[in-house]
């Protein structure tokens, strides 16, 4: 039943791409986006059914003779990702028409965007290596064009270039990994490779896994491969970066899961350890840079890096537990990873869409020049608050449930026999705990400074949400709440997926009778997200109702906030994003290495009190100390090899001759 739905989705997106081309006029723009939304809905339903079914359905599309057939195979693992793809595109479908104004640029953009969505679908349902690689490359190219929407603005070229360059480096590694597996398994079909993975020598399997991890890591944004994320997201249009962050990153994670669980399922324990280490480092570095970031979209980009780190560390932990004869915990952590993929996809896409709304309404993305948006943009603020509560993992929303399950899983590291691994897992849990704490701090800072308080600039003061898209983000907010309250249902679906992938029967130790979740072992701990959400809200509303009922009816006197009695409390006396993040900046000074410039009037000998300018800039550590040397080395090598391209024909003919001779020798040998 899922295959036709997926075909419908693909067709809808293709139609949307076609209609998009004509989106120079509003009706056609609306039509294209609604078609894209319809495709999203179809994909959503298809993904759910696929996940629930637990069986893979495959279809072969034509017999290409050169590189094998264009085989499609929708595995249950892809089901979770299809659901996410559906939700995100559905929301963006309703968001885009009000966000973009019809015109030639928008037309090209809508078409390219729908092609990118189509390519992502192709990646998820690719059955054999060639389809996967073709779909992957077309997805990367389409996304580069998505980023290039406002190509005339500053920084857009740089962002797109970084995305493409790192994407290509990653792609080469992915090809290498697939080639190793395909040559050893003598087949291009993924299911065949999966079946024959057992008898590939360990050395080759390890190289393939590492290549896949790093290759897909580029796309997922694992540190230190992450630098395209903060460069590309701010310049892409809001729905573009929502799609990028909501889904494209998850395709990287899908690739890692594909290699970790499907193709090379039973690897040695150091695979899991390395993956978990990669994930934990990514999470911490991501959130540390997020805390001090002032640009709203760059902040969300770093937060995406952090969440990818959490997902990959969950995947790593799952591999670790499985390789240490703890399949139940392994399966449980895989469920956690998938659940976090869906969660993060929803609230991160929501936050990016809201960032777009904020940027359009107030004309700036700099948190320090926003403030007081809640007065002018009530609905958007509520939706952003739901997203913030979600991503900051605060009860009762879905972020809290997935973070709780992750920690319950990691805290059972003691069940592993080898104490070293147990300690390392708990160490990872500790670092993820720090990350979770900093995440709450970072999002309190971002939401508080941008939405609450007094407006710090004219743009923020008269930001209104008239004409801004509300339904799209609202849908995602509803999705967040649904994912929290309906967590048991979602986990049942994900349990089917995991049974499909790893064959472990997790159900009895995952969901106890009355909507309560337990982490893979009975008497360890339990949580019922449904009851939590319902009762938390009820418990908080009850006293409010009592107070409202019994409040004295006397005239309430409104007085300005107490400010120590100064003549007038001005907006720029409020705490800004930087001063709020100062404790973290001071504690992690080693990582930030800020270069601080202070000039004050009171430094002159007479000590006049007057203007103060304080400028501190956080150093981009990875760009400066990792990438710049590599780039400089590559450019140096390139310069030395300049003589090859001398430009005279005879030299080129000579090259051809040499190559011919070499080929003959090889063949003869």
């Amino acid at each position, binding site marked *: 039943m899922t295959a036709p739905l997926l075909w419908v989705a693909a067709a809808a997106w293709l139609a949307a791409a076609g209609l998009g081309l004509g989106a120079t006029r509003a009706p056609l723009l609306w039509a294209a986006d609604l078609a894209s939304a319809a495709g999203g809905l179809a994909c959503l339903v298809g993904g759910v059914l696929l996940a629930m079914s637990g069986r893979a359905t495959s279809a072969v599309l034509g017999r290409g003779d050169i590189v094998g057939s264009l085989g499609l195979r929708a595995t249950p693992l892809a089901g979770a990702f299809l659901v996410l793809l559906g939700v995100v595109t559905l929301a963006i479908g309703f968001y885009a028409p009000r966000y973009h104004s019809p015109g030639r640029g928008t037309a090209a953009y809508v078409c390219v965007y729908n092609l990118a969505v189509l390519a992502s679908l192709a990646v998820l349902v690719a059955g054999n290596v060639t389809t996967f690689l073709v779909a992957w490359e077309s997805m990367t190219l389409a996304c580069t064009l998505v980023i290039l929407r406002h190509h005339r603005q500053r920084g857009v070229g740089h962002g797109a270039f970084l995305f493409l360059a790192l994407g290509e480096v990653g792609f080469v590694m992915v090809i290498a990994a697939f080639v190793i597996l395909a040559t050893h398994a003598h087949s291009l079909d993924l299911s065949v490779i999966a079946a024959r993975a057992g008898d590939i020598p360990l050395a080759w399997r390890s190289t393939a896994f590492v290549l896949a991890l790093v290759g897909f890591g580029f796309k997922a944004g694992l540190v230190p491969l992450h630098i395209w994320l903060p460069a590309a997201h701010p310049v892409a249009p809001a729905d573009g970066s929502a799609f990028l962050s909501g889904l494209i990153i998850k395709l990287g994670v899908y690739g890692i899961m594909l290699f970790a669980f499907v193709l090379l399922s039973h690897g040695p324990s150091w695979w899991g350890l390395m993956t978990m280490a990669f994930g934990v480092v990514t999470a911490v570095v991501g959130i540390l840079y997020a805390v001090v970031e002032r640009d709203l979209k760059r902040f969300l980009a770093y937060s995406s890096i952090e969440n990818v780190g959490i997902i990959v560390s969950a995947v790593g932990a799952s591999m670790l537990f499985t390789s240490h004869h703890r399949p139940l915990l392994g399966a449980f952590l895989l469920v956690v990873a998938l659940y976090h993929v869906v969660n993060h996809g929803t609230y991160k896409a929501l936050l990016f869409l809201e960032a777009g709304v904020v940027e359009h309404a107030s004309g700036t993305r700099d948190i*320090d020049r926003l403030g007081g948006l809640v007065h002018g943009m009530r609905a958007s603020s509520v939706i952003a608050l739901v997203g913030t509560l979600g991503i900051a993992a605060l009860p009762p929303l879905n972020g809290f449930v997935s973070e709780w399950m992750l920690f319950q899983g990691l805290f059972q590291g003691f069940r592993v026999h080898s104490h070293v691994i147990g300690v390392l897992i708990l160490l990872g849990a500790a670092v993820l705990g720090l990350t979770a704490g900093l995440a709450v701090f970072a999002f309190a800072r971002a939401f508080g400074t941008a939405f609450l308080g007094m407006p710090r600039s004219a743009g923020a003061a008269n930001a209104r949400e008239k004409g801004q898209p509300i339904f799209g983000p609202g849908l995602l907010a509803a999705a967040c709440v649904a994912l929290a309250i309906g967590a048991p249902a979602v986990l049942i679906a994900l349990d089917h997926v995991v049974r499909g992938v790893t064959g472990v029967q997790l159900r009895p130790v995952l969901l106890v009778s009355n909507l309560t979740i337990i982490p893979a072992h009975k008497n360890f701990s339990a949580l019922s997200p449904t009851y939590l959400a319902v009762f938390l809200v009820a418990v908080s509303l009850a006293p409010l109702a009592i107070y409202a009922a019994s409040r004295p009816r006397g005239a309430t006197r409104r007085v300005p906030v107490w*400010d*120590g*009695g*100064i*003549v007038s*409390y*001005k907006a*720029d*006396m*409020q*705490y*800004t994003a*930087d*001063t*709020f*993040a*100062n*404790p973290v*900046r*001071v504690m992690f000074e080693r990582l930030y290495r800020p270069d601080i410039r*202070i000039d*004050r*009037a*009171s430094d002159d*000998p*007479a*000590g*006049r*009190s*007057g*203007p*103060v*300018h*304080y*400028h*501190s800039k956080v150093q981009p550590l990875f760009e400066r100390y990792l990438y710049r040397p590599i780039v400089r080395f590559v450019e140096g090598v390139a310069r030395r090899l300049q003589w090859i391209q001398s430009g005279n024909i005879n030299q080129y003919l000579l090259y051809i001759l040499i190559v011919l001779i070499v080929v003959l020798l090889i063949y003869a040998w």
Partner: protein
Amino acid sequence: MSDLTPNQTEAGAPAQGGGAVATGENVTWRRLQPRVRVTRIDAGRLPGLIHELAKGARARLADLFGAIENGQLVLRAVYAFDEEGEYLVVEWLVDGKEYPQLSDVAPAAFLEECEVYEQFGVRPHGGKMLNRVVVPPHAQAFPRIGAAPKHEAREVHAPHLVAGEVIEFPFGPVRAVGQESIYMGLVTSGEEVIDLYLLQWHKHRGIERRLQGLTPAQALFFVERTEGLSAVGNTLAFCRAAESIAGSEVTASVERTRGVALELERLYNHAAAVAAIAQSTGLSVGQAQAEIALEKFLRLNVAAASHRYLFGLLAVGGVQRSLDSEAVTEQLPGALAELHRVSEALMTTNSFVDRLEACGVVTADAAKRLGLVGPVARASGQDFDCRRDHPVAPVINSTSGVPVRTGGDVLSRMEVMLGEVEESSRLIAELIGAGLGAAEETAEPVAGSALGWCESSRGEALVWLTLDDAGRIARARLRPASVRNWRAFDDAARSRNVFTDVPIIEASFWLTVAGLAR
């Protein structure tokens, strides 16, 4: 360097004299009163003299103020030569709208230059930025001593043009309970104090303008209430100025009474400072014990001079009431024992001492540059004390032991204060031993000007008094020690301190806003 013979005794009429004040600059000065010489110089040669005095590093700019004398604006800069124990008053006439700039050479003069601009409308050369001192932002026609300037100096609104990743955290004017009203603009990047500036126009009562036209005896009522916690210090300087004009001298026994009153005031102020430091560092037990000592000192004041803060004790030409020396000898040891018990306990508590170390550092050169006085200066290595360096005849309390520290932080200031408590208790015993008198000679009114000074508990308090021939005040310039030492407060707060250090630094300075705003 300078041929100022220290105790050039000229009795009677002020002698004319000449001589190089500083090397190479031949300046004619006239003896105004013992230990004070005046030199009138025309504005042209002023910069040279200022450079000479600043280069010599022996002169300390104590005050700069203006006065309207027969229709002309005269600016006076008071230089103190602490080694020689002499004051030099440099006068010059200002006819245009500008006068030579002092604050670049002697930074201590900056606040006074701003005040001169506000009160007389003349600004120093160089067009440098001036700050507002006492004129509130929303004041309509604000009364001035001289002429109001065409347009007011900037720097009156908060926030203070702050840019980049800092905000100005508004602290004040209504601060903690029992704290005086002053606005502190804390420029911070989150926790660390990047810059701090003060707005002190909330408490300006225009005392100097109010004194014009009163007789010195009537003016005493207001001089006492400019700075309640240094009532004796400021009134003593005022009375000495009035007595110098009249040329009368107080008998030794009456001067001893005044000396004992001054030391009693110093004792209770230092006890209050110890209590404030203990409170600001959170030691409520230490604070309670110090407050017991403070209360005992105040009850000692009541027993001795029937006023808890020694108001209404001094008078021009003597003392209004006698000081009950039996009460002092009987109650003083008890109060001092209480204070010793607290300071012993505090100074041996490592957590307390560590908290004060390197907190609110005022470097020696900042103390010299800003012309600080009193315990704050002595804690930064400036070894001068008016009682020893500028004793006033009849010399009764030229104390020898002046505690000096070089740390410049809160701990050094506390050590200096505790050292001064020992010194004062020894001095009181010595003075009471020699017998206290209670007399008040009222001299007939004489025209003239004079400088009065004394070492109040916060440092050197200066008063310049000009009486007209009817004996009424033509110009009274009050410069309590608070005016001088508040200048170093933002310097101390800026040296790598965080928010919680500001109250500790303020407690260690133990100044009053009333004395600053006047």
